């Protein structure tokens, strides 16, 4: 019917981001752009040693330098001296005299000065005497010595099962940096009454709040954490960086204190993706049906717990891939070493084990004599199947469909010119030597928090009349980190309320918790909270309208036919405001055999990579990555494709170039000059397709989308490089010398898959 009121910008539309216009003008305030009258600059003194006892700290010379207003050490801490995620708070706010430094880059003292160069000079002038100890840098050795952050065993069926065809392999994943472009930054402003306001780039305001308030010995209401513009996160901002430090300096000096990390400091100022060493054994029948998987996964957790607990669970639970596996013995542990702590990064444990299980599936296919595609189709998980934890996949699991559709996506054209060959601008590859091959990988992962966490998010929605028309206001504490949650919240409010003008209020801790912008959970959790709060508002609006008002669209109350009855604005003499706390279905804990319903839902992905390789020169260029992803419902297709493309870029990086190089516990490449990131010239063609099969429990049936294409793309790219070069390639990122066959990665030890290191 023509002429019926319609709301523009609702769910399902590719609406542009509301913050994009400010961002393209340079008018969007990121955390490092903040400033205040009379502001000081904070700086952190950090240990150069990965393992040492602090014997003496001398601050008087630094304190006497020009412009220096304050120097703080652990002796000045007012509250709890440790912070951390989850239940384990094991990381010192500052390492004090007599205490032990556990990684190179750990914070020892803080300085505030009028100019950042004065702060830098004063930080260098703080004299610290260390008794240097031998660092523990081998995670396998650490586990043998009992330095275990968590280990998990999953036993299913007959762990000792035998099979007709058995393949074994060792796999290694290097340490990836999230490398968000925005550095760690924040501005702390004392309120003059003993409290503090902190504007900060973070993923989780309330998680920060609990740690900051405890460290400052302040009641939570005296610490207000407010979201500043976040320049990307990808897991790097789950743990604290400058939050406590900035507040300590601000409260001590009584002046606003800004802190931002340079890129070198950022590399030790946030956690990274756990490096992994994985020993796998797969068994199948002669047709390629999986009979058993046995695996040992060793993760380097670094010096402190961070989120290792949950990363271990994910690496293990998803460690066989989205396949039906009747018999499993899986051992996964994170070691405590003297490396910078490892924790959350997009894909969160599933990335590491996906590289191993997908490499194994290719080996198995070869051993059985079927194609990589066929072995995956034969074992693909379906709705109603069980994970290796025994949990039934109750929602959508269109794995075979994803694989088939991915195989139908168009292949890339041959390299157009020399620049498109491996080695590109360097003119290094001969077109005649270049071999093109494709590789396959599939992956899956949970959405939202797991293992019994009470996962919830809060939203407040207000509808009011402004200049004669209805405006919705949405307030949450959820962190927009670039993923596009702000767009989704607006689309949801428009959908439920039938008004187009939706204003997003600043995210801060003045409203209830939204949890972290991680685990691909915010569309489900905060999106769900906004939907329910908006539905409460809509209910009140329809009550005011009375029959025959049945719905809201295009600024009107409408009847069953969608015909307009009255402008919404007319019903808003009194504004309507409702709040909702949205919890997802409670998950359970794992038992001693690693069995239990630990997750609420799963998202699946299939990927095909096409790579051009010059096997003589050891050069590769990824030509194309094709992705078909299970998204439930695409609330904003433009944003979903944007997430896929961005995740693929990070997958290209992990497969081909990105690795933190550490020697004797010290990072050697803490800069963008030495830590390589994919540029516009490295980026392959990305083709993607979405499979929309509504998830029963999810708001609108929409699953999270951010992580899956980073789970399996590194494995797919490496598989293509293997196929093109004929080399084993058991580690990512693939090094040129391995691609050229000059060297080969060997297991650091011989471990029996399924058994703990001994």
């Amino acid at each position, binding site marked *: 019917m023509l002429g019926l009121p319609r709301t523009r910008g609702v769910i399902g539309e590719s609406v542009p981001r509301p913050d994009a*216009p400010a961002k393209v003008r*340079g008018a969007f305030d990121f955390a490092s752009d903040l*400033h205040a009258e009379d502001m000081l600059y904070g700086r952190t003194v950090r240990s150069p040693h990965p393992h040492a006892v602090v014997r003496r700290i001398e601050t008087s010379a630094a304190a006497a330098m020009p412009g220096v207003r304050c120097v703080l050490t652990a002796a000045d801490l007012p509250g709890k001296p440790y912070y951390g995620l989850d239940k384990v708070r094991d990381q010192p706010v500052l390492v004090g005299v007599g205490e032990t430094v556990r990684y190179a880059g750990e914070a020892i003292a803080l300085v505030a000065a009028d100019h950042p*160069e004065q702060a830098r000079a004063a930080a260098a002038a703080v004299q610290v005497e260390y008794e240097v100890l031998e660092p523990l840098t081998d995670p396998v050795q650490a586990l043998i010595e009992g330095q275990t952050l968590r280990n998990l065993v999953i036993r299913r069926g007959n762990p000792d099962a035998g099979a007709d065809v058995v393949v074994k392999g060792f796999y290694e994943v290097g340490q990836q940096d999230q490398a968000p*472009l925005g*550095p760690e930054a924040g501005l702390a402003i004392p309120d003059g009454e003993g409290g503090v306001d902190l504007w900060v780039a973070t993923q989780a305001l309330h998680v920060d709040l609990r740690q900051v308030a405890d460290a400052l010995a302040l009641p939570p209401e005296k610490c207000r954490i407010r979201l500043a513009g976040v320049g990307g996160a990808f897991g790097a901002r789950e743990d604290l960086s400058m939050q406590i430090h900035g507040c300590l300096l601000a409260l001590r000096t009584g002046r606003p204190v800004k802190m931002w990390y340079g890129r070198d400091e950022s590399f030790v100022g946030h956690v990274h993706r756990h490096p992994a060493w994985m020993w796998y054994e797969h068994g199948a029948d002669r047709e390629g049906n999986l009979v058993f998987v046995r695996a040992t996964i060793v993760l380097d957790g670094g010096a402190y717990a961070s989120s290792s607990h949950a990363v271990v669970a994910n690496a293990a639970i998803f460690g066989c891939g989205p396949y039906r596996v009747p018999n499993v013995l899986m051992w996964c542990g994170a070691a405590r070493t003297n490396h910078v702590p490892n924790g959350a990064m997009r894909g969160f444990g599933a990335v590491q084990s996906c590289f191993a299980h997908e490499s194994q599936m290719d080996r198995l296919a070869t051993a059985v004599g079927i194609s990589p595609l066929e072995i995956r189709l034969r074992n693909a998980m379906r709705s109603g199947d069980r994970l290796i934890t025994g949990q039934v996949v109750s929602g959508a699991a269109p794995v075979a469909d994803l694989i088939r559709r991915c195989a139908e996506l168009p292949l890339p054209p041959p390299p157009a*010119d020399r620049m498109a060959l491996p080695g590109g601008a360097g003119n290094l590859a001969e077109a005649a030597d270049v071999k093109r091959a494709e590789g396959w990988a599939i992956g899956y992962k949970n959405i939202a928090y797991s293992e019994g966490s009470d996962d919830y998010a809060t939203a407040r929605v207000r509808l009011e009349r402004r200049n004669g028309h209805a405006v919705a206001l949405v307030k949450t504490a959820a962190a927009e*980190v*670039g993923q596009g949650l702000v767009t989704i919240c607006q689309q949801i409010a428009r959908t439920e309320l039938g008004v187009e003008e939706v204003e997003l209020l600043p995210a801060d801790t003045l409203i209830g918790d939204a949890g972290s912008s991680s685990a691909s959970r915010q569309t489900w959790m905060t999106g769900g909270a906004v939907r329910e709060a908006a539905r409460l508002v809509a209910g009140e609006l329809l009550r005011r309208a009375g029959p025959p008002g049945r719905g809201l669209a295009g600024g009107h109350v409408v009847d069953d036919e969608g015909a307009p009855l009255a402008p919404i604005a007319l019903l808003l003499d009194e504004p309507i405001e409702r709040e909702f706390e949205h919890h997802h279905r409670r998950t359970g804990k794992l038992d001693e055999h690693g069995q239990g319903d630990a997750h609420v839902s799963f998202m699946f992905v299939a990927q095909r990579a096409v790579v051009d390789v010059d096997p003589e020169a050891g050069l590769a260029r990824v030509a194309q990555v094709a992705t078909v992803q299970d998204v439930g419902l695409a609330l904003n297709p433009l944003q979903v494709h944007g997430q896929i493309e961005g995740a693929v870029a990070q997958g290209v990086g992990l497969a081909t170039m990105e690795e933190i190089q550490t020697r004797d516990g010290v990072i050697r490449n803490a800069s963008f000059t030495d830590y390589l990131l994919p540029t516009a010239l490295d980026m392959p063609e990305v083709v993607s397709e979405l499979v929309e099969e509504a998830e029963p429990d999810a708001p609108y049936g929409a699953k999270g989308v951010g992580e899956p294409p980073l789970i399996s793309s590194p494995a797919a790219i490496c598989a293509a490089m293997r196929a093109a070069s004929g080399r084993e390639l058991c580690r990512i990122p693939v090094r040129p010398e391995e691609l050229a066959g000059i060297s080969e990665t060997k297991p650091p030890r011989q471990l029996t898959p399924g058994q703990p290191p001994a």
Partner: protein
Amino acid sequence: MRVSLEVNGRPLAADVWEGESLLYMLRERLGLWGSKNACEQGECGSCSVLLDGDLVCACLVLAAAADGAQIRTVEGMADDRIGRAVQQAMVEAGGVQCGFCTPGFVVSIADLLSRDPHPDELAVREALAGNICRCTGYVRIFEAVQKAAASL
């Protein structure tokens, strides 16, 4: 020392410390926070500005060396039609996610289109190879370049 320059057509001056970069001067001295500080090593292009018409990383230019120069920053990009077209195309194509790299890309793309109004794919990739984006995988940024070029 006193540094005077013209930024986006406005004469401006500030007292700077001898070691300060043009990026620091723009941001902390002149309050032009649009140019970003992601690597401060000339690798990521987040601080891209035009200095006397040349595309540079403001983090690698000493403020003192920019004395007397004409600077165009992201804040001045809307002053001409190329800059406005680039900004609009970046919004519409979905070339913006976290947005930290965006100001640098806007300046670099506008610079590209002012020299080459219809760049082919390779020309776009080469021109933007000095700007790192960690969110988008560049795909929608490439689209934005073509969209902006088509609109001019």
